[in-house]
């Protein structure tokens, strides 16, 4: 992997190629700056851009629309409060919002002990196909809405071996650590670490040209 991406050693500006970056739209970071000054319209614009993506991940993690509603509201409210602390050099607005939303969702699931349900769900699917990410059925019409991004992600996910995809999904959507994944799947810890690492590296390579933009 390291050999496959030597450019990582030089300064890299990462921008997520969301629809927000299409010409004529105000850059995400400008919206965050406006939000930091108390501009509600900037918040509304960010919600319009990232709301569906964040709602999708919240729904996938929490499993219920009422919970997803609260998670997304909380996430954007936190972004509103913390807008002045956003630092572009640490990552894109999309990554920042995703991190907030995912943390909120995982916290909620943990606090309500929904993990048990998730375990049962995963176990009932155990041995068969792991839940699909990227081209699996989103909770509500996700495939249609994913459009081009969804197709590219699906293609990238298809490059992964099923166990790699499963390990990444357990980490991403259920917030499990290496050791928890190993316990869940009854696999050696080292095997899980390798699956997560190689899977993520493959995804990064596959999606780099589409989602990341390197600047010298």
């Amino acid at each position: 992997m390291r050999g496959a991406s030597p450019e990582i050693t030089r300064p890299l500006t990462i921008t997520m190629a969301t629809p927000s970056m299409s010409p004529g739209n105000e850059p995400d970071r400008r919206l965050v700056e406006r939000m930091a000054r108390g501009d509600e319209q900037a918040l509304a614009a960010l919600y319009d851009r990232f709301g569906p993506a964040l709602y999708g991940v919240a729904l996938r993690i929490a499993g219920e629309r009422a919970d997803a509603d609260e998670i997304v509201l909380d996430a954007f409210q936190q972004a509103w409060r913390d807008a002045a602390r956003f630092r572009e050099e640490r990552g894109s607005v999309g990554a920042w919002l995703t991190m907030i939303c995912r943390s909120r969702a995982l916290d909620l699931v943990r606090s309500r002990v929904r993990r048990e349900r998730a375990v049962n769900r995963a176990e009932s699917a155990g041995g068969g196909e792991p839940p699909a990410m990227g081209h699996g059925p989103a909770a509500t019409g996700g495939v249609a809405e994913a459009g081009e991004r969804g197709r590219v992600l699906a293609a990238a996910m298809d490059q992964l071996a099923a166990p790699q995809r499963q390990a990444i999904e357990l980490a991403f959507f259920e917030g499990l650590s290496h050791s928890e994944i190993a316990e869940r799947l009854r696999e050696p810890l080292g095997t899980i670490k390798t699956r997560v690492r190689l899977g993520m590296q493959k995804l990064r390579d596959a999606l780099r040209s589409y989602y990341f933009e390197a600047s010298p």
Partner: protein
Amino acid sequence: MSDAMPDMRDLAPAYALGALDGEEKRAFEAALATSPELQQEVAEYRELNAVLAAGQPATPAAELRERLLARVRAEKVVPLAARKSPTRPLFGILLGLGVAASTLLALGLGLRVRSLDRALASRDSVIALREEKLSERERTLNAILEPGTDLTVLTTPGDRPPGIQVFRDKPRNRLIIHAFRLAPAPTGQAYQLWILPKGGNPIPSRVFNSEADGHALAEGIEVPPNIVVEGFAITQEPAGGSPRPTSAILLYGKVITE
């Protein structure tokens, strides 16, 4: 890059996913704090998280947007620069109110601190009790594992019958008994241990009862000196114990190494 760095870079994907824990996470974060390359690596994998999230969008309810805006409006703070400067008298009143509010706040905080102190003291005593209990357990365990301690198991026929382990510390001539699956004795009754000496009558010993879960533990039971113990028995007796058995033997065990 240091020699250790490649290993750390291998952990960046998992760190960005939140899949590291324990010592590995601490070590990675320590390295991350001083390595711009690692920071860049993590940032890139966090972008990948955003991509993964964006792969399955879903449509939120239409009113969610308005709920969000209503929420932030409710907590919106008007920038200080936009406020009109208050006139002097009003400023004085506000200042006085502010001082009063601060005093009340300080008083409230003082009470809160005192309440927290009390809570902490209570926790301390709970912890002390638990520590004492743990120490007791440790002493018991040490006594059981002591060289020269013999074990006799008292049983009775049946399917999953109750049992009692009698640990005898021969150098100190003391017993520890541990009962299991032994139902608590009826009200007004208790169990009594009998030491069975060679060529003599049963010697009354510890009276005890079991917990609801069928367990009982009794320690420091003295064995009379200058006797040869052939076995132990348990009977059910009045709660205060009896000088001689008044009921049939419930459990019996013969000492093998005496």
